[in-house]
């Protein structure tokens, strides 16, 4: 990356199918502008999100990871996001304990009606990750082709 | 020094989905460099590591015969990650072939003898190579009667139909093709391979049998041959095990002291009786 070019982070974004993914759709339909740095990955529920996915994203070169699902009480599967909340708490603490910079891993509750919150959060997440620069945490590097 | 781990680059010149369940797909491969084709001198019964860069390698028996020219034929069963990837590849794409690996069917020792070949399901690959090789005018005269028994569950699961239809028309090979159960439109034999073997009753005198198939077929075919008076030394089988290096180092394919990739894959039943059944 040349110095003149601004760093554009790549952010793996895991969205619950029932809420945040709908929120993203609505943001799109509503023509709300947001930075193009997120790569949306649809998952059935935040409860489905294995910590493995998060590590895999960082391993494969993500500069940030954002996970978003239904507000507590709104889960399509009743309590998937509540289990997920505990898991995220432990995971976030663990990853930051072993050196992941705070600001790389984000969580949010965004319903399918909250297009504006979606837009706002993309902006917030992108800015936070951008400020940290490229991520080295767990990034797999196999070297160049000879 | 040549590096036995580096595959020869090849181009897929043709593909064909062989079976109705789409689990088996054939690949015809041409070497990018003619010198590699020359270096890849093989004998029926040998296998090669098919290499898909980024995914890995799988050991697959060579189904073509060297008598057919430089194009190699492999028929691949879709089971793991490499074979699944391979199934998605098409004509014109580049991949790799490493080999030929392993020993081969004992074609020299088989000279002057009657030969019975029994194949079940997709284990027919290297036997297709063998029959093609034996029927080549340069070799046919060296061998006695040839009997080929081939079975699959349904007609749609039989491989290489063009070939065996052709062999059925010839008078220098007895070709019996069977399916497990009656199906509308099938005019051939019906019955399990062991039963067909019992009916055909190949004679053990001055003869060799090559038997390849799924474990269940092997289990029921062996007693038939025993009853017909065949000795374990006359029965030749080909084993499969998980492999990586293909040249007898990496340690996972061994059956007792024998490495399936290097000392095999072809063993006589007599040899296997003295080894742990780790296959």
């Amino acid at each position: 990356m040349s110095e003149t070019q601004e760093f554009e982070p790549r952010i793996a974004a895991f969205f619950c199918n029932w809420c945040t993914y709908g929120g993203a759709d609505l943001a799109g339909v509503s023509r709300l502008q947001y930075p193009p740095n997120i790569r949306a990955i649809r998952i059935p529920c935040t409860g489905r999100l294995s910590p493995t996915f998060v590590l895999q994203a960082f391993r494969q070169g993500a500069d940030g990871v954002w996970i978003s699902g239904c507000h507590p009480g709104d889960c399509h599967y009743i309590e998937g996001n509540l289990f997920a909340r505990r898991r995220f708490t432990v995971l976030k603490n663990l990853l930051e304990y072993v050196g992941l910079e705070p600001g790389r891993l984000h969580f949010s509750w965004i319903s399918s009606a909250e297009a504006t919150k979606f837009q706002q959060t993309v902006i917030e997440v992108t800015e936070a990750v951008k400020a940290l620069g490229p991520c080295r945490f767990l990034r797999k590097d196999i070297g160049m082709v000879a | 020094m040549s590096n036995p781990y580096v595959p020869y680059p090849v181009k897929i010149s043709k593909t064909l989905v062989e079976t109705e369940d789409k689990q088996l797909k054939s690949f015809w491969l041409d070497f990018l460099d003619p010198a590699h084709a020359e270096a890849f001198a093989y004998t029926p019964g040998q296998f090669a590591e098919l290499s898909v860069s980024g995914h890995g390698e799988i050991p697959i028996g060579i189904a073509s015969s060297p008598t057919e020219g430089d194009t190699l034929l492999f028929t691949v069963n879709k089971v793991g990650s490499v074979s699944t990837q391979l199934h998605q590849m098409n004509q014109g794409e580049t991949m790799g072939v490493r080999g030929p690996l392993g020993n081969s069917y004992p074609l020299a020792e088989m000279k002057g003898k009657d030969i019975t070949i029994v194949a079940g399901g997709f284990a027919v690959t290297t036997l297709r190579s063998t029959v093609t090789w034996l029927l080549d005018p340069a070799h046919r005269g060296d061998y006695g009667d040839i009997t080929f028994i081939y079975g699959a569950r349904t007609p749609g699961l039989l491989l290489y139909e063009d070939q065996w239809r052709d062999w059925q028309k010839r008078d220098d090979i007895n070709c019996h093709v069977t399916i497990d159960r009656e199906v509308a439109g099938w005019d051939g034999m019906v019955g399990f391979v062991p039963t067909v073997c019992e009916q055909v009753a190949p004679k053990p005198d001055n003869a060799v049998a090559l038997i390849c198939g799924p474990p269940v077929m092997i289990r029921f075919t062996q007693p038939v041959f025993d009853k017909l008076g065949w000795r374990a030394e006359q029965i030749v089988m080909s084993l499969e095990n998980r492999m990586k290096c293909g040249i007898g180092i990496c340690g996972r394919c061994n059956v007792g002291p024998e490495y399936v990739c290097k000392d095999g894959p072809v063993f006589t039943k007599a040899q296997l009786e003295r080894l742990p059944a780790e296959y």
Partner: protein
Amino acid sequence: MDNQALTQGIREAASRLLAEGTVDCVLGYQAGTVPMRERPFFAYNPEEAQRLIWSGFCCNNLADFLIRRPAGEIGKVAVVAQGCVSRSIVGLIKEHQLTREQVHVIGVASPGMLDRDKVQALVGPDKVITAAAEEGDELVVEGPGFNQRIARNKVMRDNCYTCVQRNPVIFDELIGGESEPTHGGVIDKVAAPWERLDPAGRLAAFAENYQDCIRCYACRDACPLCYCHVCFVDESSPQWCGKTQDESDVLTYHILRAFHCAGRCVDCGACESACPQGIKVRRLTSKIEKDVREFYAYAPGLELESVPPLSMHRPDDPQGFIK
């Protein structure tokens, strides 16, 4: 009670249980072939039970062997269990890997188990130790040209210093009575030593801690929590974690393994005792243990009834970090 008396008590209990047919097998410890390395032993009859022993070097977590026996072979087994092993058994019962009826717990109060690496380091890394025997609060270590007495509490396993539950939490019989409760030391301080570092420093400390890892998976295989039929590191499609020695692959393995133990790890120290490279494997699990205790007021392995913290939720669970 000294080791001889405990050994005698274990042998008597085992002989009785086997003779009466109460259990099919007694899982205990046997003297190892090298000093300071006692090993798991399966006694099937009263004669074999005479080979059971007790010492401060009984460091394998025997609960691990309850779940590593081939399915169908689990009849009723008696297990020699110190505090941490009993907590592991509680966890396994809670997670439906065992039933309470399948195990007969022969409880032994742990005096704090000893770390052979620490003993070796103390007498000198190049000294050959030919014998090590406990005498009260001391360990007598012998070898060619030396005979050294070491205070027991200088060479205990790290996890034994912070342990607050040395007595078995469940047992069917107790050999040698309960031990005095321990205060457990300053667990929060040792649990998360990297907390004072900045992110770069933490990552460096983390990587350094695991730099000698050879990925033999002894930590996983010695752990009674790691009973998955297919471990995530062995998954091939998709492959979650590369098989190489690259830092990224090694660290991914350790993070995920530790995470999988969240709310379950009873801090038995079997992973550290098993590691051939002497890696401080508990650096991660202790941190998680601390978090789980702080956030959800839960300590694993103490009673059979409670629900593991990551298998439940409460409406008011902390979520300050969620936007």
